């Protein structure tokens, strides 16, 4: 077993949760900006792309367009469907974003807890007691 694989999916999940927190924080910061459209990502689809089974195009030169970019890139960002858009074109629903942000933070902590467990079992294996 390689040490890189020891943490499994949780390592990717923590990184993506951080990026999603930034997106949601941006939505909340722009809650009063005219014309701002609330954005979010499909977290499950993003996480699936990080799994080793995913087939990727080889990008051998800098100009190649590969699907090997890790994390959130522009084309994965989607616009949230507003339940009730404001007159100035803003689609941020502060309550919704607040809920999504705290749910995201909780799930981040859960992923960290899983990582913590992995670390503990590794330490037990190393120390042997």
């Amino acid at each position, binding site marked *: 077993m390689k040490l890189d694989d020891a943490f499994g999916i949780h390592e990717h999940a*923590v*990184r993506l949760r*951080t*990026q999603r*927190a*930034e*997106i*949601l*924080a*941006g939505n*909340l*910061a*722009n*809650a*009063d*900006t*005219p014309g*701002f459209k609330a*954005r979010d*990502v499909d977290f499950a689809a993003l996480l699936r792309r990080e799994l080793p089974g995913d087939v990727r195009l080889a990008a051998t030169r800098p100009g190649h367009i590969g699907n090997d970019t890790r*994390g*959130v*890139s*522009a084309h994965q*960002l989607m616009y949230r469907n507003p339940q009730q858009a404001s007159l100035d074109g803003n689609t941020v629903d*502060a309550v919704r*974003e*607040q809920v999504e*942000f*705290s749910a995201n*933070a909780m799930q*981040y*902590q859960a992923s*960290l807890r899983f*990582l*913590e467990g992995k*670390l503990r079992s590794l330490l037990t294996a190393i120390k042997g007691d």
Partner: protein
Amino acid sequence: MSSFKVFDIASSGMSAQNLRMNLVASNLANVDAVSSSTEATYRSRQPVFRTVLDAQQPDGATAGVQMAGVVESPAPLNRDYAPHHPMADEEGYIYRPNVNPMEEMANMISASRSYQNNVEVINSARQMLAALINLGR
């Protein structure tokens, strides 16, 4: 791992809402500032917010906010006939600012709530970072 930009984004939101609150205070403070000409009369000042996109990735995920500028309300001034007022012009009129106190109070509550939202974001982000720092302890 990115440098945890949540703090920057939320603080940009907080400072924008803070400036908005300052404008509300300025409008409410000047609500009774009477003058004797249309030019000299205080006009209601309103903020214009603008999204700040990351220069490295203009269509990217992270977006803060900033105050693009302050506009003066084009609503008509209130002209009152008060010939005995010390500020009255030669025709006997005084001019009052076009500040609407009800609008300003609603504006104030909205700014305050948005500010609190950003504070909550910072609190949550701080807990996330603290949990990350304590990983493996």
